[in-house]
């Protein structure tokens, strides 16, 4: 059975598995994005230091944790 045939058989028999795979891949990419965002926020708050800077960093950290939570949730419950 070729790879193409295997993929087609998965789509026909269990499309849910394919959806779960792409959802996990998308959320992994989003985690990478949120890590970059967190790192950039850390750099940005050194460029402009203000009283609100820790709050902005905390929001970025929350965004990263939310992204991580979404990935773990999709792995467990989807």
């Amino acid at each position: 059975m070729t790879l193409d045939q295997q993929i087609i058989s998965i789509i026909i028999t269990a499309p849910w598995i394919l959806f779960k795979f792409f959802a996990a891949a998308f959320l992994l990419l989003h985690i990478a994005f949120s890590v970059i965002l967190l790192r950039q926020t850390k750099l940005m708050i050194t460029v402009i230091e203000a009283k609100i800077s820790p709050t902005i960093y905390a929001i970025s950290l929350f965004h990263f944790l939310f992204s991580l939570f979404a990935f773990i949730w999709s792995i467990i419950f989807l």
Partner: protein
Amino acid sequence: MSDAIIPPSTPPTDSLKAKGKSRFTPQALSTFLFMPDGIRFETQEPTETIILLLRKHWITNFVWIVTAVILIVTPTVLFPAVLFSGIISNISNSFVSFALLVWYLITFSYILVNFLLWYFSVSIVTNERIIDIDFQNILHKKFAETRISRLEDVTMKTGGFIRALFNYGDVIVQTAATEAVFHFLAVPKPDKVVRIINQLMGKISESG
């Protein structure tokens, strides 16, 4: 504030600060800060004082804020409508939860990225320099600076209904160098910005 001539290398005094509008607005998210307290920038020298800190006018965020509100509200209308209309049958609860989770995750990212780009793109006028920090996107930063003594010409450009209504416009600062032009885009009160920079230029040329 417009009458305040700021001597170079002199820390802000209470009388000068009292004239600044920033005293009456929440400093953290203000777009026009005159002699702000508790704000420093990366390459600030010990004797350097921030005279002006400018961001794009709040109204320039209108489009992404409206989009964000639509993104937040849409699931509360769309999801019940789809679920109860029976357009899609046999839809599992876990799929609905997943869709909601991903939707709000993307919305959160959208809001955060737009806010960060607006908040950290600033134009700073100190008693010694002019600094323009522009975050074009999350990965690209443009940093430009020049000494006040090197400035040649400061002009402002405003026009259009929205800009006139909210009193914001572009300030263009030309330096002695051939192609070094600073664009402070969509900053509030451009006339005051030009006046303050001109005062600083005059003061520095007087002191030699």
